[in-house]
């Protein structure tokens, strides 16, 4: 990287997941192989037959957002604002830079999304259709724009620096982390809250169902299980995960605890948009090789994998083949996890969940297995893939993501004690 100036570190995380509302319960749930998937409760399915979904439990994001009216925020905005609340606390950033009453904090926000404001924009339009345009709600229109959640989180917390929303299919959360890391490295910011947020809603679930992307109903063995021999689609999920990213200089100057380093990223695109599995695999390979080069690492340095596999037949396979193409025979010996087996397909939020799982594994010395993976697809290049956790010392992890319509992204994550090489 010609423009590199500073290393990027992770100093905290804010999590709202189907397995719990902090990084500890999320990681413990993943380690124990618990499932956050259950029948849908949070919205009217209008008769749509849905498999289990990764829905947040009843005490939603509102419990973390006190003292002000929540009326202007739609659900995605609340998810983003609540995750930001948690990450600003977990990282000690708010405690260091200001009280709860502070006007603004010296940080920006980079938020990944895939369906963004689809529920609100749909409800706004339906109200115009059924009641008349004069009866629509201005609050709904404000939240109809795709960047509404990022805007609402910035307003709630006074995040007055760069405020970017990034879309890249199911890689969006990872792409947001990668973009934020670039902005930090080239000196455009010293602290960025980055990750993704996505809500479950009728509109997106209907579209997945119509496009044949969901696990078939009724669910058989392997439904929604990454890399499973009998998988036939994903189970949709929701949530938010935000990491506090800072330059190492900024983090050290405030004495922050460093959870890990983001040392490299890469992305690529398959112009067949998933129609040609080989081209999708090639996009994954290129993204990984670019990320390793960016980090100054070799394939042999990688000691753990956090993949985006979700139970989709073709996408899981293309991701695995792309990883094998990038890492060679080394891929078969690597411990591999896939959080979507426990959380469902969290779309724009997934990449941040995946990254967090690897960071926690580095700290705990154990990488979660893949929930429900009792029978891996035999042709896949992962000898160690299964439901049991892997103990070991993880120093250089690789997070990969492939979207069903072409986006591929990879991130190199290194432990807190590792010094980035270049």
């Amino acid at each position, binding site marked *: 990287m*010609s*423009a590199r100036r500073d290393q990027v570190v992770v100093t905290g995380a804010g999590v709202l997941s189907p397995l719990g509302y902090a990084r500890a319960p999320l990681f413990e749930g993943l380690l124990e192989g618990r499932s956050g998937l259950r029948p849908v409760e949070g919205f009217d399915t209008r008769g749509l037959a849905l498999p289990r979904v990764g829905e947040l439990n009843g005490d939603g994001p509102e419990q973390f957002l006190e003292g002000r009216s929540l009326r*202007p925020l739609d659900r995605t905005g609340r998810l983003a604002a609540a995750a930001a609340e948690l990450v600003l606390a977990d990282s000690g950033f708010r405690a260091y830079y200001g009280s709860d009453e502070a006007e603004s904090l010296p940080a920006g*926000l980079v938020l990944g*999304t*895939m369906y*963004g404001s*689809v529920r609100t*924009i749909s409800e*706004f*339009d*339906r109200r*115009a*259709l059924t009641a*008349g*345009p004069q009866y629509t709600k*201005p609050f709904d*229109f*404000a939240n*109809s*724009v*795709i*960047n*509404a959640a990022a*805007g*609402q989180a*910035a*307003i709630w917390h006074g995040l*007055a*620096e760069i*405020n*970017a*929303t*990034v*879309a*890249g*299919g199911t890689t969006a959360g990872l792409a947001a982390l990668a*973009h934020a890391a*670039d902005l930090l490295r*080239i000196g*455009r910011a010293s602290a960025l809250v980055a990750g993704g947020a996505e809500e479950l809603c009728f*509109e*997106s679930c209907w*579209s*997945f169902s*119509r*496009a044949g992307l969901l696990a078939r109903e009724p669910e058989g063995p392997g439904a929604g299980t990454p890399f499973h021999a009998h998988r036939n689609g994903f189970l949709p999920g929701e949530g938010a995960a935000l990491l506090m990213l800072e330059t190492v200089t900024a983090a050290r100057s405030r004495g922050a605890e460093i959870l890990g380093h983001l040392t490299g990223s890469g*992305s*690529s*695109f*398959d*112009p*067949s*948009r998933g129609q040609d599995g080989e081209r999708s695999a090639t*996009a994954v390979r*290129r993204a990984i090789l*670019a990320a390793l080069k960016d980090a100054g690492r070799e394939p042999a340095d990688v000691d753990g994998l956090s993949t985006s596999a979700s139970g989709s037949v073709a996408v899981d396979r293309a991701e695995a083949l792309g990883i094998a193409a990038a890492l060679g025979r080394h891929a078969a010996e690597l411990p591999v996890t896939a959080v979507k087996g426990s959380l469902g397909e969290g779309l724009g939020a997934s990449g941040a969940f995946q990254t967090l799982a690897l960071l926690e594994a580095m700290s705990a010395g154990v990488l979660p297995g893949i929930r429900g993976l009792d029978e891996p697809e035999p042709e896949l290049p992962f000898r160690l893939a299964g439901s049991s956790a892997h103990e070991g010392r993880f120093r250089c992890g690789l997070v990969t993501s492939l*979207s069903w*319509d*072409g986006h591929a992204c990879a991130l190199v994550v290194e432990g807190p004690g590792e010094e980035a090489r270049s």
Partner: protein
Amino acid sequence: MSSCIVVTGLGVVSSLGSDVEQLWSSLLEGRSGISEVESFDTSAYRVHRGGEVRDFQPERYLRHLDPGSMGRASQMAVAAALSAVADAGLRSGGPHDPDPERVGVVMGTTSGEPREVERFNDLLVAEELDRLGPELATRYPNHVIAGQVAAELDLCGPNAMIPTACAAGNYALAYALDTLRCGRADVMLAGGADAFSRITYTGFARLGAIAPERCQPFDRNRQGMIPGEGAAVLVLETEEQARRRGARIYAEVAGYGLSCDAHHMTAAHPEGAGAARALEGALASSGVAAEQIDYVSAHGTGTPTNDKLETMALKRVFGDHATRVPVSSVKSMLGHTMGAASAIEALVCCLAIRDGAVPPTANFEEPDPECDLDIVPNEAREVPVSVAMSNAYAFGGNNASVLFRECVS
């Protein structure tokens, strides 16, 4: 320090023509792209005018993808991208053509493909949803526009959407600049696209923000914005590569400033503080002093608040220079094309630098003491432009200013 990043190709779809030179001459002549809305029935509204694109035929552009497989914003984006690539001479088949693996796409948008939601809702309300195919999954998600561009052009480089509402075009340019400077691609197609939609029109009508007849930025009696549509794409690459392949260089993208008001979703900060920080960031990152700015392409929506606050921000950062520098808003002619707006205005800055001419702010009648800028009223002006600033502000409190500079070898 890294090489300069330059603009070598322009492409556009607009209500004043889908050819760059046609749009440019129309803007210089002060023509209007505003007309009665035809794409949906406005009888339930108090306003009826918009900046719809009338003559656009996507099938005349697309060579690989079926226009029927994508939404309208994607169609316009793909067409603009094909025009920009042709303008840049990128697909000449020559030895200096860039590797498609090193060509990326980043597009901005406000609402993406809202017409897909409208069709979904029309059928849902009519209880005929079973007539709809998978379009809400294949044509709607927030990333699809950039994906369609890359699919049509078979590009494998970094691909992203930056949907930061009406500042999205400038955010996309900033993303492209960083992607190139970080060495992640050799060429980036960057721009913005938004389709005229019932949803957007309803929202701005509900806010009382739409002017009944004309958009009159900076005029004392301005009555609001007028929604529009369109797409623009710019080809960005390193100066070194552009010179190697003998490409024409419009301008350098010298720097940018981004900020967030963190104040209100739809109302700007009452003192324009965020907008001022974006201007300062663009100057600082470009190493340019305010006095060097020769032209400002204003956000200039024509709403009472925006134009007043943008004036305050310019004065705060530019000092006395704010009242000397020509400032104009092409939204007076095109309406507000949402996520496409700052991409189209980036194109305006490039052409102003090329031709030494700046487009007027049309429909100007009465000066506003709160907008006491040189707004180039009604008639284009010939003036040498070496450095141009383009402003964009958005819902969510997003502010983005991008600085363009003449590139002399």
